[in-house]
């Protein structure tokens, strides 16, 4: 497909403006003026519409295909949430920040505050900041709050503990904040090895970061004990909420003993993902950590008015402009209201049932390194297929040809040739069955005609990409004409 610049025809226009009837004066200094016109593509409106429509037809997205990308919770994003977000499109984000501006923005501030209250109820926490713009940003916010809490207590802490199944952003966030990472291996029962954890725990540990259920899709039965041990060493428990979709209405991190958590609204709460829209990673804390939350803190007075609290000396400061990605917060708020308590409980139940259905349907075809009842996702290994020279990557590429977005592969790192499948609750049994059939077909091909998998995809606009070369010879600039 041609780039939009290659479609450019000199002089072609999408809009014709009348000639200016004012004298051409300029108050800008000469050295700031352009000497050559900007090299923008010149196209008609129809050229442009066709260009982007055709591009969008090549997109492989949740709106076009089943997307069981493990750990990412690629559920359907209901269209009504777009309408709700659109209701707020006319508000200028500066208004609430102006002196007295809160009185003009009670509705928007109310959405943020009431969303926080609902998230507290779902997670068993006491207060939320909606500022962080993604899960990883929430983790960094969380670790900054943890560091500030320890500083205020005069604690000297050096380490953050993570299990070896953790998402890379966990150790990365802690390491960016200056902590040394202690990694605990996973025991054969699929969770952080409890004995090794106890050995690693000491008074210099600032925090333990856990995902529960973890990235193998397993719920750690020792989570309460782990929290108690950490607290006995004056360490805080951090909960990575990426997998909250498994437990809504069933278990709450706050009740398990966690002190601070982040949520990924773009996962659990059905807001767009990645290129589909900005993310949002609110952080929720227990009472003792409230003073350290980012500023400005949003409060509700006894007469029901919302206000932005002025600077608080213990706060870690601002983590984002304005109040976070407000449009995403509005969508998540509408999603929760729309489903209600019973709806959210059914979301988690259905997500878990779907994952277990996939797991039991495919376990004769792929190795299952941790064969336990799973929560909302399950992790297979292509180790068996590797004996025929077929990698998880080849199976992923084959799935694209068959109309399915590949599951997450090569994560979690502890599973060789990992294939991590998260169907979510929004898929029907017939979609799951179609996916299962193609996964079986891939396993059979791997056993009998492995070469057939190595060339895929063959039906896509581009064939197998050279991922190694793309990573080794990074070219991120496109020189303009």
């Amino acid at each position, binding site marked *: 497909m041609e780039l939009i610049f290659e479609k450019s025809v000199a002089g072609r226009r999408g809009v014709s403006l009348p000639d200016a009837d004012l004298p051409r004066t300029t108050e800008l200094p000469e050295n700031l003026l352009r000497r050559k016109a900007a090299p923008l593509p010149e196209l008609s409106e129809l050229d442009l519409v066709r260009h982007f429509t055709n591009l969008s037809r090549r997109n492989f997205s949740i709106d076009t295909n089943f997307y069981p990308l493990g750990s990412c919770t690629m559920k359907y994003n209901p269209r009504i949430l777009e309408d709700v977000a659109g209701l707020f499109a006319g508000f200028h984000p500066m208004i609430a920040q102006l002196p007295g501006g809160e009185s003009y923005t009670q509705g928007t501030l109310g959405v943020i505050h009431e969303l926080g209250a609902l998230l507290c109820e779902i997670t068993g926490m006491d207060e939320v900041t909606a500022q962080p713009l993604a899960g990883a940003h929430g983790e960094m916010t969380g670790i900054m709050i943890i560091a500030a809490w320890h500083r205020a207590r005069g604690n000297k802490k050096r380490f953050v503990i993570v299990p070896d199944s953790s998402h890379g952003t966990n150790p990365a966030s802690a390491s960016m904040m200056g902590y040394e990472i202690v990694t605990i291996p996973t025991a054969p029962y699929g969770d952080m090895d409890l004995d090794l954890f106890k050995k690693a725990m000491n008074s210099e540990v600032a925090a333990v970061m856990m995902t529960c259920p973890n990235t193998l899709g397993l719920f750690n039965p020792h989570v309460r004990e782990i929290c108690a041990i950490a607290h006995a060493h004056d360490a805080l428990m951090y909960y990575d909420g990426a997998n909250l979709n498994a437990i809504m209405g069933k278990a709450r991190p706050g009740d398990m003993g966690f002190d601070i958590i982040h949520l990924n609204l773009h996962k659990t709460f059905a807001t767009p993902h990645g290129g589909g829209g900005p993310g949002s990673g609110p952080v929720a804390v227990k009472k003792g950590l409230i003073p350290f939350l980012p500023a400005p803190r949003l409060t509700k007075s006894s007469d029901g008015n919302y206000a932005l609290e002025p600077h608080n000396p213990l706060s870690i400061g601002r983590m984002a402009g304005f109040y976070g990605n407000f449009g995403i917060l509005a969508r998540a708020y509408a999603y929760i209201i729309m489903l209600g308590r019973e709806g959210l409980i059914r979301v988690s139940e259905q997500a878990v049932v779907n994952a277990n259905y996939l797991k039991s349907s495919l376990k004769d075809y792929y190795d299952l390194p941790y064969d336990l009842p799973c929560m909302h996702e399950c992790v297979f290994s292509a180790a068996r297929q590797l004996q025929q020279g077929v990698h998880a990557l080849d199976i992923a590429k084959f799935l694209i040809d068959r109309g399915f977005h590949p599951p997450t592969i*090569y994560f979690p790192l502890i599973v060789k040739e990992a294939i991590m499948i998260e169907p979510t609750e929004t898929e029907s049994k017939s979609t799951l069955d179609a996916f299962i059939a193609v996964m079986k077909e891939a396993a059979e091909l791997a056993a009998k005609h492995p070469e057939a998998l190595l060339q895929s995809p063959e039906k896509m606009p581009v064939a197998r990409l050279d991922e190694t070369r793309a*990573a*080794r010879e990074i070219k991120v600039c496109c020189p303009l004409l």
Partner: protein
Amino acid sequence: MELLYTREHEWIKIDGTTGVIGLTEYAVRQLGDITFVELPEVGREVRQFQILSSIESVKAASDIYAPLSGRVTTVNEALDTHPEIINEDAEGNGWLAGIEISEPAGKKALMIREEYDEYLRGLP
């Protein structure tokens, strides 16, 4: 000259008080095509089994651990522009760094080739 291995799949070739460190062929096969190597800083003190540097492949980013304690004296700068050398010759030209060994007693915690091969056979 002595060649020893870690459970995390690093090797160290020891000559007197200096050692050259790299990743084993087994480790590199698991990682797949290497796309980026973070080289440690020359002069840095490293402790045995603590993070020396990191490496990225098409599949994952992983830490590399120091087989022995010491001070980094040289790094293999060719890896900066040609990380594929590690795929081609992990246990030769694909070496990562040289160190001046400060605690040779740490050798007791390392494996000789036969022990390492035995260890590999036990892995899933």
